[in-house]
C-alpha cells in the first residue's frame, strides 16, 4: 500500500466521516493540512476572523444539524483562542472535533515559536483529547474522536497534531466505525427502573415533566417521544433554557421555561408537584434556586445519559442512566403494558391555571420607546411560519428571547447555557446558516455581547451568509446592571457601554446592511426590511435603557420567592446571596 502524509490521512478521514464543513484559521503549524484542503472538492473550509468564533460556529453547526462540528486551528494562540468555545461545548454537551496544529515533536517542550501545551490546557475542557505522535495512529484517533464526540453525552474532542506528523507518511486503511474498544455509554434504560418510574407516574396527582438539552441531543425522535408521553399523561411540561423547542410552546400543556427567569406557573408547579420527571436535564443552579426549598414534597425520577449528573445536586428517588429518548419510549411502553389511562388531573391543572393567570411575562409599555420584550415579540410574529433559527449572546436579551420567542421544534434555539459565553451567538449563527442554507438565522444580541465577536462580519460577507444580527441596544451590560441594582445599590461599576460604535455604519463598513430602529412605530417595518434583505443585516434596535428582566428568582432564593416586577424588589441581598453566582 502506498504511504500517505499525515495531513493527507487526516483529510481522507474527514471525507470518510462525511465532514462537509470545517471552520478554521491557518497558521504555521497547520500549513501541511491547509495545503491538502486547498481547493478540496468536497470539504468547504470557512475562514473565520478569530479562532473562538471557529469553535462557536462549529457548535452552531452541530446544534442545528445534529452532526458534529469541525474546527481546524494552528498551534499556540490558535489553540488558546479556541478554548472558550471548547469549554462552551463541554458545558452544553455539544459534539465538536477540534484539530490543532502543534510544533514538531522534537520541539515539544522547548518553548518553540507558537508552542502551547494544548493537550495540557484542554485536558479539563474536553470530553477527551489526543496528542498524535505517529502518523500511523492518525486514522484510528480521528475516527475514535468523532465517535467519542457524539456517543453518550456529546462533547468536544481535541486532536493535537505536530507539524512533522502532518508531513511524515504512513499507510492508511479506513478503520471500522465506532472503533473505540471500550467506551460504550449506557443508552438503554434498566427495565426495572422504568417499571418503578411507571408506578410513580401512574400514582401521581401533581406530576410535572422537566425536560432539558438531553432531549435535543438525543435527536428528533426524543422530542416526538416527549410529546407522546405528555399527551398520554396529560402532565404539564416545563424545560430548561437548553431544552426549548423539544416540546412545542404552542401546546396548552406548555408552562414555559423554569428557573431564575422562568415563568411563575412553571416554578410554582415545580415547587408544588408530587412527581418530577426530569428528562435530560441536570438540576442546574439556575433551575433549582435555593436547594433546601427545591420541590420539597415531590418524588423525583431522573433520566440522564451521564451517571455523574444523577444525585450530583439533588438526590432523586429513581435514577435512570439512559439516552433520554430511549427512556421515554420505554416509559410509554411500560405505561401502555399496564393499561394506563390518562389520569384526571383537573385539580392540578386548576391550580396551574391560577398561577398562569398571573401573566408573569407581561410588561408595561413605555410611550414611543420600545420595550425589549416587545421587540422580541415582534420578531417572533414576523418570522412565524418560516424556518427560523435563533441564536443569542448572553445577558438580558438572551432571557427575553427565551421568554418571548416561542419554539415548536428542536434544533432551532442555540444559546450558551452552561458557560454563558458572550460572543457566542453571532459565530453560532454562521455555523447554523452553513448547516441550514435555506433557514432564516437570527442572532438576538446585546450591544455589549455583539462586540465580543463582531469581527465575524467579515466572514458572513466573504461567504455570502444572510445571517441577521438583531441588537437590543440599551447601552448597558444589562444583566450586570440588573444585578448591581439588586445587590449593590445601583452602583453601576463599569456596566455602562460607553463609546459604542455606530452599528449601522459598522455594518456598512464591512459591506453588510445596517438598519436602525428607534421607536415603536419603526419596529415592524424595520424587522420586515431585515427579513426581506437577501444578505447579512445588522439591526440596531434601541430599547428602553433601564428595563430589567422579570420574573426573577433572586440568587439563593426559593421558587416561591419570585419577583414578578420591579416593584417587588426591596433592599439589597445579604452576604450569603451575594456570594452565589
Amino acid at each position, binding site marked *: 500500500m502506498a504511504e500517505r502524509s499525515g495531513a493527507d490521512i487526516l483529510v481522507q478521514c474527514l471525507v470518510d466521516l462525511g465532514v462537509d464543513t470545517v471552520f478554521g484559521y491557518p497558521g504555521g503549524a497547520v500549513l501541511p493540512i491547509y495545503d491538502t484542503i486547498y481547493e478540496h472538492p468536497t470539504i468547504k473550509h470557512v475562514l473565520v476572523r478569530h479562532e473562538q468564533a471557529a469553535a462557536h460556529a462549529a457548535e452552531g453547526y452541530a446544534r442545528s444539524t445534529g452532526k458534529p462540528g469541525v474546527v481546524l486551528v494552528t498551534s499556540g494562540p490558535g489553540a488558546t483562542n479556541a478554548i472558550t468555545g471548547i469549554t462552551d461545548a463541554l458545558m452544553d454537551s455539544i459534539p465538536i472535533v477540534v484539530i490543532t496544529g502543534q510544533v514538531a515533536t522534537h520541539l515539544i517542550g522547548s518553548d518553540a515559536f507558537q508552542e502551547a501545551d494544548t493537550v495540557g490546557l484542554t*485536558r479539563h475542557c474536553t470530553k*477527551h483529547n489526543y496528542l498524535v505522535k505517529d502518523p500511523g495512529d492518525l486514522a484510528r484517533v480521528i475516527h475514535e474522536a468523532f465517535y467519542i464526540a457524539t456517543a453518550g453525552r456529546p462533547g468536544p474532542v481535541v486532536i493535537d497534531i505536530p507539524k512533522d506528523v502532518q508531513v511524515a507518511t504512513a499507510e492508511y486503511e479506513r478503520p471500522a466505525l465506532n472503533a*473505540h474498544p471500550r*467506551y460504550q455509554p449506557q443508552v438503554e434504560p434498566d427495565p426495572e427502573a422504568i417499571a418503578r418510574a411507571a408506578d410513580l407516574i401512574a400514582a401521581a396527582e401533581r406530576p410535572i415533566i422537566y425536560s432539558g438539552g438531553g432531549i435535543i441531543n438525543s435527536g428528533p425522535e426524543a422530542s416526538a417521544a416527549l410529546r407522546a408521553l405528555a399527551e398520554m399523561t396529560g402532565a404539564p411540561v416545563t424545560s430548561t433554557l437548553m431544552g426549548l423547542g423539544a416540546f412545542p410552546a404552542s401546546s396548552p400543556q406548555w408552562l414555559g421555561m423554569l428557573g431564575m427567569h422562568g415563568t411563575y406557573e412553571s416554578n410554582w408547579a415545580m415547587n408544588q408537584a408530587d412527581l418530577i420527571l426530569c428528562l435530560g436535564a441536570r438540576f442546574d443552579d439556575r433551575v433549582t434556586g435555593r436547594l433546601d426549598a427545591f420541590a420539597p414534597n415531590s418524588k423525583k425520577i431522573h433520566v440522564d445519559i451521564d*451517571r*455523574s449528573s444523577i*444525585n450530583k445536586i439533588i*438526590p432523586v428517588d429513581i435514577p435512570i442512566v439512559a439516552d433520554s429518548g430511549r427512556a421515554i419510549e420505554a416509559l410509554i411502553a411500560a405505561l401502555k403494558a399496564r393499561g394506563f389511562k390518562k389520569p384526571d388531573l383537573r385539580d392540578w391543572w386548576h391550580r396551574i391555571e391560577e398561577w398562569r393567570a398571573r401573566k408573569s411575562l407581561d410588561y408595561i409599555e413605555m410611550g414611543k420607546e420600545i420595550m425589549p420584550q416587545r421587540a422580541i415579540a415582534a420578531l417572533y410574529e414576523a418570522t412565524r411560519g418560516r424556518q427560523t433559527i435563533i441564536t443569542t449572546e448572553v445577558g438580558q436579551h438572551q432571557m427575553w428571547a427565551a421568554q418571548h420567542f416561542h419554539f415548536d421544534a428542536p434544533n432551532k434555539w442555540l444559546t450558551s447555557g452552561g458557560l454563558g459565553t458572550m460572543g457566542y451567538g453571532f459565530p453560532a449563527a454562521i455555523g447554523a446558516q452553513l448547516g441550514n442554507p435555506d433557514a432564516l438565522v437570527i442572532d438576538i444580541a446585546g450591544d455589549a455581547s455583539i462586540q465580543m465577536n463582531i469581527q465575524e462580519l467579515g466572514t458572513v460577507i466573504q461567504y455570502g451568509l444572510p445571517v441577521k444580527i438583531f441588537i437590543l441596544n440599551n447601552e448597558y451590560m444589562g444583566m450586570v446592571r440588573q444585578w448591581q441594582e439588586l445587590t449593590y445599590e445601583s452602583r453601576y461599576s463599569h456596566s455602562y457601554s460607553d463609546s459604542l460604535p455606530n452599528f449601522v455604519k459598522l455594518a456598512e463598513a464591512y459591506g453588510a446592511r445596517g438598519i436602525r430602529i428607534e421607536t415603536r412605530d419603526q419596529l415592524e417595518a424595520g424587522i420586515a426590511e431585515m427579513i426581506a434583505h437577501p444578505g447579512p443585516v445588522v439591526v440596531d434596535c434601541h430599547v428602553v435603557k433601564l428595563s430589567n428582566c422579570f420574573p426573577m428568582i433572586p440568587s439563593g432564593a426559593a421558587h416561591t420567592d419570585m419577583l414578578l416586577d420591579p416593584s417587588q424588589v426591596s433592599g439589597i441581598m445579604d452576604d450569603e446571596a451575594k456570594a452565589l453566582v
Partner: protein
Amino acid sequence: MHIRQEDSERHVLSVTVDNEAGILARIAGLVSARGYNIESLTVADVSEDHRVSRITIVTQGPPRVVDQIIAQLERLVPVHQVRDLTDTGPFVERELALIKVAGTGEVRSEALRLAEVFRAKVVDTTLESFVFEITGPTSKIDTFVTLMRELGLVELCRTGVVGMLRGASA
C-alpha cells in the same frame, strides 16, 4: 459569612486505566478541578502487555462527594473501572516507607529495637545512621514515624497506599 464544611469520611478507590501519556494528569487534574481531596495517589502499570495501569486513590469527602468522584472518574474515556474498596470491602491496604534515622549510642540502639518491634527492615546503615524499610497500613507507618521523630528522623519517603479486596476473586 463563613464557608460551610461537611463531615467527611476516608475512602480507598482502585481505578484501572489505559496506560497512556497524560493519564495521571487527567485523573489528578479532575480531582483538583472539582475540588476533591486526595490523601494519596499511586500508579503503576500492572498488565502483562503494559496497556493497563492501576491507580489507588485515597480520598476524603462526604459520601455524596465520594459518589461524585467515582462517577466523574468513570466518565473519563481511558478509565476502565472504578472500585470503592471501602464500600465493597473487606480489603487489604499497604504502604511502604523509607525512613532515615541518624544518631549514635542509646538513641541508635533504641531505634533498632523499635524497628524490630514494627518489623521494619534495615536497608542501609552507617555508623551513625539507618535507613529502615517498613510496610503496613497507613496507621502503622504513622505510628512508627512518630516514634522515629523522637529518635533522630532526618528523612522520610512514603509510597502512598495500594489496596486490594480480600478473597479469591479479582
